[in-house]
């Protein structure tokens, strides 16, 4: 790779990075145009932005309007209200939970962690699957066979069951879950799709041109194949976020994760304290958290589907 970098480039009037930036901007504008045609993707994007604003607003609210002792999502308690859980009121917009904590504050606080979890898992899985996919497609042969067999095995494993047992046997925190899920997904089905895309890129003329110009194997993989795999990788990031957040919610609902607060734990608390069938007055314990998980997962999946129509020319209308 070092040889490739030291090659003298033909002088152009504009610096290279500016040309690249302009090209990237152009292709982004093009994709955005295609993405915008589909209302499904815009709905998803809107929901994601909404959750982003909610998670950003939480620290600001905690610092200004909300008193930390009353509104803290984990250790808060509102002593001014006689019996908890209390229904929604002006003081607590979504009411309080069985041990007197503000539901809205919990909801907003958890959103931040769900974003973190989803992004970490998605990044791990995409970095793995893109690297493995590109390398397997580029070198072929034994490397390809080994990675593809691993991917075959991974797609056949029941993830949730394995994660249930893993989280029960080990002390699992959010970061561990993100890493394990990212690795399981990254070596699994994603790799197969990305590799097949990389195979079509490998035979493109510009790869040959790069090789003729003296580019090494790794240089070609990282600077010529990677950028062209990015749109597909981005699509799979969205779907990984959905999966990771769903599994986190399911595991913490069953009380298997060692975390202090999340949407799954909110439902778990409501159910464990016996407020599931307690009547319409207690629905604020179940509905916001469940709806938040569902909407969050759906939003990323919707964006992924809309991206699919941008990335996959066979699905385009024209």
């Amino acid at each position, binding site marked *: 790779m070092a040889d490739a970098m030291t090659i003298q480039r033909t002088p152009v009037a504009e610096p290279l990075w500016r040309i690249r930036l302009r090209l990237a901007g152009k292709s982004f504008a093009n994709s955005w145009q295609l993405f915008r045609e589909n*209302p*499904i993707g815009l*709905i998803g994007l809107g929901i994601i932005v909404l959750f982003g604003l909610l998670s950003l607003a939480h620290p600001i609210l905690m610092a200004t309007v909300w008193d930390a002792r009353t509104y803290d999502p984990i250790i808060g308690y509102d002593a001014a209200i006689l019996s908890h859980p209390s229904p929604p009121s002006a003081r607590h917009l979504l009411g309080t939970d069985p041990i007197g904590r503000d539901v809205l504050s919990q909801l907003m606080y958890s959103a931040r962690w769900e974003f973190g979890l989803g992004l970490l898992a998605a990044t791990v899985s995409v970095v793995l699957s893109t690297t493995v996919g590109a390398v397997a497609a580029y070198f072929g042969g034994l490397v390809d066979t080994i990675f593809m*067999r691993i991917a*075959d*095995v991974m*797609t*056949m*494993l*029941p*993830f*949730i*069951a*394995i994660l*249930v*047992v*893993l989280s*029960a*046997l080990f002390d699992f925190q959010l970061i561990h879950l993100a890493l394990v899920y990212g690795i399981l997904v990254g070596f699994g*089905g994603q790799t197969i799709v990305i590799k097949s895309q990389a195979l079509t890129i490998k035979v493109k003329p510009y790869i040959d041109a790069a090789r003729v110009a003296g580019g090494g194997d790794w240089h070609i993989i990282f600077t010529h194949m990677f950028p062209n795999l990015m749109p597909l990788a981005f699509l799979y990031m969205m779907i990984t976020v*959905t999966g990771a957040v*769903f599994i986190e*919610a*399911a595991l913490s*609902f*069953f*009380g*298997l994760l060692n975390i202090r607060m999340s*949407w799954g734990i909110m*439902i778990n608390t409501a*159910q464990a304290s016996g407020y*599931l*069938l307690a009547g319409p007055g207690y629905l604020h314990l*179940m509905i916001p*958290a*469940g709806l938040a*998980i*569902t909407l969050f*997962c*759906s939003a990323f*999946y*919707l964006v992924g*589907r809309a991206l*699919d129509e941008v990335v996959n020319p*066979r*699905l385009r*209308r024209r």
Partner: protein
Amino acid sequence: MRKYLVGRILQIIFTLLIFQTLLFVILDAQPGDITMQFLANPKVSAEAREQIRANLGLDKPPLERYVQWLKNFITGNLGTSFEHWPRSVMDIILERAPRTLVLFLTAQLIAFAVGFSLGKLLAWWRGTVFEYGLTLIGVVMFTIFTPWFGLMMIWLFGYRLKWLPVGKFLDPLLWRTSSVDANYVFGRLMLTALIYTVFVLVVFFSTRKLSASWRRVAMWTSMGAFGGAAVLVWALSDIGVLAGDMLKHMVLPLLVYTVVNFAGTMLVMRNTMLETMREDYVMAARAKGLPERVVRDRHAARNAFLPVFTALIISIPFAISGGIITETIFSWPGMGLTLLSAVQNEDIPMAMGALSFIGVLALLAHLVADVAYSFLDPRIRYQ
């Protein structure tokens, strides 16, 4: 095709080996061992702990234990459950596995049929409000938080409307005076379903030579007649009430399982159908003047079937894992609930046995679907 099948079976066996190795590594990576449970017990001395370790073979080197682990798995010796002492893990699996299988197979069949027909319509009506609305509902159903959805269904149908029981496998009050046990009735129910399936298949293949309209009449009347006869036989027998009770408990888990799974097929079907609709043969069919319905169902949808079936094969392990959640919410005593309760009660042999079973089930379902696929796809059949 034989070469293809042998290759697939070898691959499945290899995957099973890797799966078992993974389980062994997970178990062996635990700090300490079972004797640590007695560490605080003054009655169990250090020598006694050593004795327990020797009896269980825990003092042997890891490689030897690994071979022993594989041998035990192959011979079906999965140990004894702590929670259900003194029943063996294998015994519990044999009792509960059919319940999981019935739920899983029925839900998958319904979900696939519904998803296939809805996906067909989505692609056909592309760009309309109907398409966007149904896609939105489909995605929400696909990514809905299953435990929450299940609890909401229980609240609605079990608590508010009181139409259906809130969970469990049967109503103990009804069964207290009965002379037969649950597994007996459940076995008979499964047998009925099996006979019915075989019958439908026989009718399906024996009417292939008839014209389309006659065939439809023959199919519906024979299916209806045989179904009616089966219901009548059950209603007249003295265990009919018990079977009805069991079926009533099955409705809600089945509903949730199906609703969560149908959208996956639907969304894949839409995309595949969009691709086949651009093919020349669809245009040719239109040019021939065939009705739109025939073009859609016979020409476009038929050719979209194979990729959708592939997607179904890939989603099987995920659907089986998702069953754990559904079973737990509805206290349906299948393998998923067994796994979770074992995990929560630290019943390690049972947890490992249940996980082994779920893994084997996922692999077998994969294999069966693969074999079906090789029959469906002429490119593999004539290889």
